[in-house]
C-alpha cells in the first residue's frame, strides 16, 4: 500500500500495575458507574466525550485527537476467563499467553524467534528501560535491553582506542564459548556476544535521527523517544517495548491516574507526530495494555485489583473505533465485583502476529482466536 518497503514494527507500551478501565474509557452516561464510584469517578462535565455513552479520561487529550483522525482502536473488556487478580500472575499470563499453565516463553520472544530464527539481527527485539519484561524473554532468543541509548556499549571509559579494541576482542573470545555445559554460562555467553554486536549498531541511532518533536522529560516519553530514534534508524527492529507505571492505584487514584495518563497520552501524541514527520505512520502500530482493570466499586480513595480491562491499538494502519462491547456494570453481569472480560487478549495478539508481523499465530498464542479486524488489510 505504501511505496515504502520497510518491514512493519510493533511498539508496545505496557501500563504496569493494573490500569483502571472505568476511569480511562468512562461510561459517563451509566448511572451505575457513578453509584459504584461514588468517590473515585470522573465527573460528566470533565469527560472528553467519544459518543453519548463513553468518554476519555480528561488527561487523554492527545489520544482523543488521534481518535478523531481514526487512528485509535479501543478494545473493550479485554482479558481472559477465570481472571487472576495477582499482578504478577496476571502480567505473566499476558506475557506468556498462557492463562492456564505457567508459561516460560514470552509471546513476543517467540515472535522474534519466528521473525529471525537464526538470530541474525540482535536488534529484532529491543526493550527500553530497566529489566527485561517476560514477554520478551525466552531461552535462546536475544533481546537488547537499553537503559540509556547515549552510552550503550562496552568499556566506554577506556580512552586508548587500541587497548579498547584489544579488550573487546578478548571479551568476545571469553564470551564466545557456548558449550552447552552450564545454562547460565551459556546464557551469559550468548548475551555478551549479542551485546557486543548490538552496541556498536545501536549507538549510531541517535546520530541518524532528527525531528522537530520535543518529548517531555519524564521517563516514558524519553524511552518512547529512544524507540523513535531506533525505529527511524532502520536497524531492523520489529518489536520495540517499554513500560510505565505504577498504575496500582489503591489509594489517591484520581491524582495519580491523571498524571500517569498525562504522560502516556503525551508520549503517544509525540510519537505519532514523529512518525508523521518521517512519513512512517503506516509502518508502526502501537499496542497499549495493562495486566487487568480494577474493581467496579471504589474503596473510598482508590480501587482494588479487578479483571476486565481495556487495550488500545494506535497507528496509521489501524481502523479506528470501538471493538467489542463495554462490559455491563449491572450486578448480574459482574464477576466477583469486577467487569467480565468479553474479549480474549489472544485475539488481539493473533491479529498483530498474523496481519502485522506476518507470522503463524496459533503456535505463538497456543490456539485459535478470532480476530477483531482492527488492522487494515
Amino acid at each position: 500500500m505504501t511505496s515504502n518497503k520497510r518491514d512493519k514494527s510493533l511498539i508496545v507500551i505496557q501500563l504496569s500495575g493494573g490500569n483502571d478501565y472505568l476511569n480511562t474509557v468512562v461510561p459517563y452516561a451509566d448511572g451505575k458507574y457513578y453509584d459504584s464510584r461514588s468517590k473515585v469517578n470522573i465527573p460528566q462535565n470533565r469527560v472528553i466525550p467519544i459518543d453519548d455513552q463513553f468518554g476519555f479520561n480528561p488527561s487523554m487529550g492527545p489520544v482523543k485527537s488521534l481518535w478523531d483522525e481514526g487512528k485509535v482502536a479501543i478494545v473493550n473488556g479485554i482479558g481472559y476467563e477465570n481472571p487472576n487478580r495477582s499482578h504478577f500472575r496476571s502480567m505473566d499470563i499476558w506475557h506468556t499467553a498462557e492463562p492456564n499453565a505457567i508459561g516460560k516463553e514470552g509471546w513476543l520472544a517467540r515472535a522474534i524467534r519466528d521473525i529471525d530464527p537464526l538470530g541474525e539481527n540482535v536488534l529484532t527485539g529491543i526493550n527500553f528501560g530497566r529489566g527485561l519484561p517476560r514477554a520478551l524473554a525466552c531461552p535462546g532468543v536475544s533481546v537488547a535491553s537499553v537503559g540509556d541509548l547515549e552510552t550503550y556499549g562496552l568499556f566506554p571509559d577506556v580512552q586508548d582506542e587500541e587497548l579498547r579494541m584489544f579488550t573487546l576482542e578478548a571479551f568476545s573470545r571469553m564470551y564466545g564459548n557456548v558449550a552447552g555445559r552450564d545454562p547460565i554460562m551459556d546464557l551469559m555467553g550468548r548475551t555478551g556476544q549479542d551485546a557486543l554486536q548490538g552496541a556498536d549498531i545501536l549507538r549510531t541511532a541517535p546520530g541518524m535521527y532528527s525531528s522537530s518533536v520535543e518529548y517531555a522529560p519524564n521517563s516514558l516519553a524519553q524511552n518512547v523517544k529512544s524507540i523513535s530514534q531506533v525505529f527511524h534508524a532502520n536497524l531492523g527492529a520489529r518489536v520495540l517495548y517499554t513500560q510505565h507505571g505504577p498504575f496500582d492505584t489503591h489509594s489517591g487514584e484520581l491524582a495519580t491516574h491523571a498524571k500517569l495518563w498525562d504522560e502516556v497520552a503525551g508520549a503517544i501524541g509525540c510519537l505519532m507526530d514523529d512518525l508523521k514527520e518521517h512519513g512512517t505512520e503506516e509502518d508502526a502500530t502501537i499496542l497499549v495494555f495493562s495486566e487487568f482493570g480494577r474493581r467496579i466499586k471504589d474503596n473510598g480513595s482508590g480501587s482494588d485489583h479487578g479483571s476486565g480491562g481495556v487495550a488500545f491499538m494506535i497507528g496509521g494502519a489501524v481502523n479506528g473505533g470501538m471493538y467489542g462491547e463495554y462490559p455491563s456494570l449491572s450486578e448480574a453481569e459482574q464477576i466477583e465485583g469486577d467487569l467480565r472480560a468479553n474479549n480474549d487478549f489472544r485475539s488481539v495478539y493473533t491479529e498483530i502476529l498474523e496481519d502485522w508481523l506476518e507470522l503463524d499465530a496459533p503456535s505463538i498464542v497456543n490456539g485459535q482466536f478470532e480476530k477483531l479486524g482492527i488492522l487494515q488489510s
Partner: protein
Amino acid sequence: MRNNDTALMAHLLRRAGFGASRNELEEYIAMGYDGAVEALLNPSDPGNMPDDLIRRYHVEQSELRDLAGSAAYWMYRMISTSCPMEEKIALFWHGLFATGYAKLNQARSLLNQVDMFRRSGLGSFEDLLVELSKDPAMIVWLDNNENHGSAINENYGRELLELFSMGIGNYTEDDIKECSRAFTGWTLGNAEYMAVRAAKDSIWPYGRIAWHFDYRDEDHDAGEKTFLGETGKFNGEDIIAIIAKQESTARFVATRLFQFFAADEITEDGEKAIQEMIASYFSSGYQIRAMLRTLFHTDYFKSDEARFARVKGPVEMVVGAIRMSGNYQNPALGIEKVSDTMLYMGQGLLQPPTVEGWHEGSEWIDSGALVERVNFAARELSDVTSPGVRSIIDRLQAGADHGVLEPSDLADRCLDLLGPIEVSDETHSVLVQYANRHGSLDLNDHKPGDEAEQRVGNMLRLVAATREYQLA
C-alpha cells in the same frame, strides 16, 4: 592449586556478605569457619560513620526524604560496614517485603524499615511479620491505612499471604478477606495531621514529620473470623501466629533464604539443605539466624556444587566491586551516580519494580544489564588509584619472584586476589594471552599510575569482565 580455606571463606563471605578483599578474608580465616559463621550471624558494631556526623558533614546524604540521597546512604552503609551480614539480611528482606519509594514519596520511612530489617531480620519470623505489619512504610505501600472495619482493603492481607509468607495455593480468597479484617485498625498515628500538611506543602506532601504506627480499636473489626480453618476473634497478631506455624510458611521462608544465600537452582542436595532449614525453623521457634546457621554448616553449602551457583544481583555486584576497590569508605559526592548504575542493571535500592520484588537468578542477565555490569566492575577494578587496587598491586609485587611476574602468574594472581575466582580453561587461556601482550611484568620501583601499574589495572579490568565474575 587452590587453598581450600581461602576459597571456602571467600564463598561464605560472598553469601553472608558482599565478597571480601584479601585483607578482610585473612581476618575471617583466623577465626576458623565456625567462628566466622558466628561472627557474621551476630553483628556487633558496623563501624560506619554515625548518622549525626553524616548529617552535619555530608548534606547530600542528610536529606533523607529524598530517594537518591537515601539510596546512596544505604549503599554507603553496605560498602563501609564491618558486619556485612546485617546489610545482606536487610537486602534480603527488602527484596522479599519489597516496598518502594514511588508511592511513599518519603524515603525516611523506607530507611526506618531497612533499620527494622537490620534489627529484627535474623530473629523470629513471627516477630518480624508483626513488626512488618506495624511498619509505616508498609502500611502506606499496601494501603493498610485504607483498611477499615467498615470496609476492608485487602491489599496487605493478600500480599501478606501470597508474597510474604505462605505463597499462592495455600489459602483461599476467603482467607484473604478474613486476614484483611484482622488487620483493620492497624494504621498510621498522625494521618489527620499529615493530611493537613499535605494540603499545605505540595513538595513534601506528607510534611516534615515521621510516620508512626497506631492501633485504632474503634476502626478494628473485632468480630469472629475463620482463617485457615481456625475460628476466633482474631487480631493481626493471632493471624500471624497461625501463619508462622504453617508448614507452607516454613518451606517458603527456607526456599527464599536458600535461593538468596546458597544457589539460584535447587538441586537434589539443595533440597536436602532446605529440609534441614525447615527443621531448624520449627525447632528454634522460627529463628532466621538458626536457619542460616544450619544452611552454612550443611555439606551442600560447603561443596563445590554451591559455589558460584548464584548470579550476583546488581546491588551485590556494585557493593562487592566497591568493597574490593576500597572506594567510598567515607560518604562522598558522586555515590548517587553509583546507585543509578544499580538501577540500570535492574535493581534500584528502595525502588523495587513491584511488591513482588525483583526476579533474580538468570533474569538479572539481559544484554542491557550485562553491559552495565561489565562496564561498572571493569571501571571500578581497573582504577589503580583506588586503595583496594593499590593493595592488590602491593601483594602482587610481594608475591613475585624478585618483583617480576610472568604473564600467566599475573593472570592467576589477579584471579586469586579478586576471589579466588575459578574460571574455565577457555577463559583462562584468553586471560593469559591478554597478560602476555607486553610480556613479563616488572613491578620493581612501580610508581602510582605508571605503565606497570596500568598493566595490572588492565588485567583486573578483563578479570572483572569475565562471565565467572558475574557469579557469586
